[in-house]
């Protein structure tokens, strides 16, 4: 598989860059949003709630879209239609789809939490986004190791 990487066609490089960079920024932004959500509860709760919501909305969501567009573009070049998907592709799709759902629910909860000043909703959003980040890191392991 590593040999395959060394002979990867040049036309795959840009979609791969989009996919990898989008995923890296997604993990960082969702991770910060998660930590800020879970840390809220003290005197600076409104500040941390806004930080978390904006991290999810302004950085994580666009990064997810870039990651997913890169993934689909790369998939169409590497596998095409009718090809059998290897296990690591399956793991990638499952975590991407489940992660999208978790990110969407996180955004809704986090947005409502900012409006209502709810610490409970903020923490729920933090837990959900943390689960998504862990799932995405499992996916990174699968993409690298290709089990």
């Amino acid at each position: 598989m590593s040999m395959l990487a060394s002979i990867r066609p040049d036309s795959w490089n840009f979609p791969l860059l989009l996919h990898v960079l989008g995923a890296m920024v997604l993990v960082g932004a969702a991770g910060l949003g998660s930590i800020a959500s879970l840390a809220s509860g003290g005197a600076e709760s409104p500040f941390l709630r806004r930080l978390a919501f904006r991290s999810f909305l302004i950085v994580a969501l666009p990064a997810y879209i870039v990651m997913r567009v890169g993934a689909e573009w790369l998939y169409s070049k590497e596998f095409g239609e009718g090809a059998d998907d290897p296990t690591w592709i399956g793991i990638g799709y499952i975590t991407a789809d489940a992660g999208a759902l978790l990110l969407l629910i996180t955004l809704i909860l986090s947005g409502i939490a900012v409006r209502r000043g709810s610490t409970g909703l903020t923490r729920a959003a933090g837990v959900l986004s943390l689960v998504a980040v862990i799932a995405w890191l499992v996916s990174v392991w699968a993409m690298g190791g290709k089990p």
Partner: protein
Amino acid sequence: MNLDDWLLALHLLSAFALVGAITIFSIGFVVLRRAETPGRVLALGSALKVGQVAVTVGVVGTIVFGVWLAISLEAYQVWDLWVILALVGWAAATELGRRSGNAIGAAFGRAEQLAAEGKDGPDAELAATVRSSQAQTLHWASTAITLLVLVDMIWKPGA
């Protein structure tokens, strides 16, 4: 999965920790410019601590597993152009990031001092420190170089 597969997976996870941390710091730098009270600066600092752990894991992991992989794989050598470019970029980005961290660390020190004195209002010195153009410049330079290293890793010039 063989050893090389594990090395690649760990190298990639380390790269995610590194760029994830840079993303966290980038958001932190943007937010910090508007944080004028010690409470907000300290609240942001506590959220950024996870970035400090991640950047350490990322910096060490990328170099250890990356060089190990270059030695282990027959297709690549440590003296390949793209590997040398990545090593130089990694060293430059790490040093610039370290200096940026030291420069912005003064803001957190000042915020802690004000909080210990029971002052939670806006402070001119704190505001000036969090808007330090030196720390910002060093951070964004480190970020740009890291992005170039990522481009180098994917395109592998000379391979």
